[in-house]
């Protein structure tokens, strides 16, 4: 069985120009507290958005 992205599972994504995908979540991710991590500093901090639509 694959690893499951459960709650608080840490991940990151990278994709090229033109990549298209559909994300289905249980709620609007903009409205919930979450953490993003700075690998260099090894320290998480709260985030609002890092992938704003352009």
């Amino acid at each position: 069985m694959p690893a499951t992205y459960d709650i608080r599972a840490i991940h990151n994504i990278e994709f090229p120009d033109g990549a298209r995908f559909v994300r289905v979540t249980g709620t609007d991710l903009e409205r919930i507290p979450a953490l993003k991590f700075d690998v260099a500093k090894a320290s998480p901090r709260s985030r609002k958005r890092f992938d704003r639509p352009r």
Partner: protein
Amino acid sequence: MRTSGRHADPAVARRCSKACRSAVPGGSRKSRTRLVPGSDDASYITGAELYVDGGFWRSEGDQAMTYHSMRSARIAARTKGRSGPGAGARRCGKISSGCSPRLPFSTATCSRRRPGGTRFTRTRSSILSCSRISIRRATKSPPHDHGGVLGGVRQATHYTDMTEWRRHGSDERPGAGRIEVVRQYRLEPGHAGHL
């Protein structure tokens, strides 16, 4: 078929039209993603299985989840911390390509002819499901989590490199802990993963 009676009200439909194309009165129903309530069957809210076209697709080993149907897939979505009926409950959403059975999902919804950007296609608080189509320029996100939410992602075109991280230590305070890479894989068109 309209999935929410609330949007039958033209005023509500107009207000939601920017975020929800299906709410546009008289609008074309092609090229539309809609979510309908799924079952609470635990077999596909575990995050390890997807219900696809009448059967369960289960990934094995380190292989990414794959399904070939471009028309529909149910992806588990779980939330917690909500109040009222259904608090802490699990809900499932179904992605459908809309009303045209001839159009595959990626063509109907994620075609290159469609404008870029990230769009909400449907939000229904009653079933706690959101669908977002991401069409953006090349991006590499920093490691992050999505709080208390389990969701799914389905690749339509090109690819997405996914990296899973593990946080060391049990200290949950902001600013504490260290992370390391656990697993890396690539989602190709037709692959589905969880986030």
